[in-house]
């Protein structure tokens, strides 16, 4: 792509963004928002983390990393009618959903501030716009507006249809307002009584979530299935303890929603070897299969249970106390204090220093609790990129019969040998190096498959055979 055409497209994108921004104050009274705009809202760096046959093609954003489970079979076999066949494992990320975490019930922030549930006003949240004051923790309830928005699949249909990743739909998937279970902790506990397990061992539960948060913030991939961002994931309702910040509260509620959605079968597991061919049902939500990217008014990204201090752009140095120089100086004074020395408990001085340190941390901006704040949720996807299917074999046989040639039979046999070789190579322990060979073979296979394409007449014949066999393509 030339620089000029890139700039031209960028100018179009900016123009569209501005056009959308002029409507930012529209909407029904008390419900404001901005119209969702895929051109301006997406942060395409989150696409990073593409692998084929286990070979890295595009690095994941360093702050987010690549989940270890995002790892399809290098050479895969999938059953799907005439599309049954062998392929190469591909892993990638797609901006699949819009998540609008709403303070005001019924208010669709990403649809220009459209209030579709005027009778639900009593459910609106009292969430504060900024950081909660210390010792003033309270319960926050928020509503989730979840929408299917497979942006790249719609735009790049030809790219993704080979991966069965094309839904083509843009629609509201779920609104939590009419869901009584989501509004009420007790009913939620009755629905998922395992909450009583955590209630029986409250200290242990809290410690579990503290360990998990620390480990993940330091780059690990821990999920014990019971934690939200910093506190408990249970009950699976729209309520959470607002002990940290509005952003963390909103992420807590998002995780609660998705955990329940997985139980109900509306969120499928998209990572793991068993999900190579297609997403699979799992009642256990894997929170690492999503990357959360605030779309408006700023672009900030995170993944499950990373402390907000690592999110980045939300942090704003707003007060005189929040001075990064003094922060560094204060932190330096802790160098000689051991956090695990039980014989020498922290002195009053040390505790005072710790308090000053916490106070001088820059305060976060609170984009997400504004009605116009919404996020794009990127989903880890996997695909068996087909190179040899039943359909292509039938086509080759038909062509061979039609032309009475014999060269294709030999090619078919050679192709079988190639697939077998690829499989052997990739399962070899030195696969990291030999994977390159697999890629070259894959390329060769692709070219071979393309070379055996059929004319329209024979396509009709294969379709007829498919129908007579009762298998759909």
């Amino acid at each position, binding site marked *: 792509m030339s620089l000029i055409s890139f700039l031209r497209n960028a100018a179009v994108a900016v123009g569209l963004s501005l056009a959308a921004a002029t409507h930012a104050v529209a909407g029904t009274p008390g419900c404001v928002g901005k119209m969702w705009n895929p051109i301006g809202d997406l942060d395409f760096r989150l696409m990073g983390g593409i692998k084929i046959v286990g070979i890295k093609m595009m690095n994941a954003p360093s702050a987010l990393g690549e989940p270890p489970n995002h790892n399809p079979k290098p050479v895969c076999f999938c059953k799907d009618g005439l599309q049954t066949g062998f392929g190469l494992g591909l892993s990638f990320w797609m901006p699949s959903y819009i998540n609008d975490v709403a303070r005001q019930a019924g208010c669709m922030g990403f649809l220009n501030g459209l209030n579709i549930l*005027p*009778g639900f006003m*009593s459910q609106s949240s009292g969430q504060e716009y900024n950081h909660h004051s210390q010792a003033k923790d309270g319960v926050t309830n928020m509503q989730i507006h979840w929408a299917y928005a497979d942006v790249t699949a719609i735009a790049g249909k030809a*790219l993704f249809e080979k991966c069965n990743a094309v839904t083509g739909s843009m629609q509201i998937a779920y609104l939590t307002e009419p869901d009584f279970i989501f509004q009420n902790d*007790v009913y939620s506990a*009755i629905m998922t*009584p*395992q909450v009583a397990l955590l209630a029986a061992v409250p200290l242990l539960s809290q410690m579990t979530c503290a360990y998990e948060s620390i480990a993940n913030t330091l780059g*690990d991939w821990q999920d014990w299935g*019971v934690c939200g961002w910093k506190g408990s994931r249970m009950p699976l309702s729209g309520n959470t303890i607002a002990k940290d910040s509005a952003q963390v509260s909103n992420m807590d509620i998002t995780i609660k929603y998705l955990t329940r959605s997985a139980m109900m079968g509306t969120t499928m597991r998209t990572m793991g070897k068993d999900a190579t061919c297609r997403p699979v049902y799992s009642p256990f939500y894997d929170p690492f299969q999503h990357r959360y990217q605030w779309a408006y008014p700023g672009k900030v990204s995170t993944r499950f249970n990373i402390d907000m201090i690592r999110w980045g752009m939300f942090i704003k140095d707003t007060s005189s106390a929040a001075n990064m120089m003094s922060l560094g100086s204060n932190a330096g004074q802790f160098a000689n204090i051991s956090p695990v020395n039980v014989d020498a408990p922290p002195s009053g001085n040390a505790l005072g220093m710790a308090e000053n340190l916490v106070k001088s941390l820059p305060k976060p901006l609170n984009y997400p609790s504004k009605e116009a704040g919404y996020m794009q949720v990127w989903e880890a996807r996997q695909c068996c990129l087909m190179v040899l299917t039943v359909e292509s074999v039938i086509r080759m046989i038909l062509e061979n019969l039609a032309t009475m040639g014999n060269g294709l039979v030999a090619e078919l046999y050679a192709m079988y040998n190639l697939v077998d070789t690829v499989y052997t190579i990739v399962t070899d322990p030195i696969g990291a190096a030999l994977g390159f060979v697999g890629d070259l073979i894959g390329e060769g296979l692709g070219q071979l498959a393309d070379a055996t394409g059929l004319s329209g007449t024979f396509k009709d014949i294969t379709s007829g055979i498919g129908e007579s066999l009762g298998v759909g393509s």
Partner: protein
Amino acid sequence: MLSLRLKPLVAAAALMTAGFMVTPTLGVAKDLGIEGTVYEPIEEDFRIMLMRLIARQDWTQHTEALEQSAKDYTKNLPDYFLPRATSTQTIWKDVGIVTTEDITMPWVDGETGSVFEPEQVLAISAGTYLNPIAEMPAAAIERLFVFDATDPEQMAFARELMLENIPQLSFMLVAGDLGPIAKEMNRPIYHPAPAMLERFELKAVPSLVGFGKGPHQGHMAVTQFAMPTTVETVKSAWFGLAYSGYTPDEIVDFESVSTRHSPETSSSSSDAPAQPKEPQP
């Protein structure tokens, strides 16, 4: 076509490097340099390509579809046509569970442990009875009146109940469009989430989800009402309908009970009341 393939020469260079690394001889690592010509990828950056594709797309129809699906959301919610209740009776259900295996949770020793390799400690042993509402005052839990909005008689009665503004009473329909009703009554009207009807023993409508006390502490009381019924009848089912041996009006709320109950059970209590379980010391 995905532009993900590597140039053959780059692959060859990588193979050479990998071969050097696995050679089982001692030696000193050094840069072998580059053999041959290294080509810059000629394919367009995948991200740029997608941005270009997205910018070319006309999104008006998609955003309109999104907006329309929001406006039609309540209209398109599924209807569950439950039968009309033929008798007024309470179904009792113990909402507790019994763990079938030991449950462990992570623990990190403060001095020697690591959050990256936590130890496992036993949190709950197998066979433990757990009930999330066992130690909760029954009166504090919200009640839910469930009805079929497509049945005019039930709808009219639900309206009557709503106008009573009974504290702690919410409304959920199983069929019909909740949007216009919520707007007209200016209050939330709910819709059952998947699996809720089964979990809450909602088998006929109209019904009231209530909660018992005393011997029924920790139990859910789902009362079905034969139509026509009255507001007073609904109120009388707040803690489940009374029967011989269970008169909720005479029982003080939230009596402490043991967590050792039998597993989840379900029984009917109006015509043939179940024997309430005795609280264990």
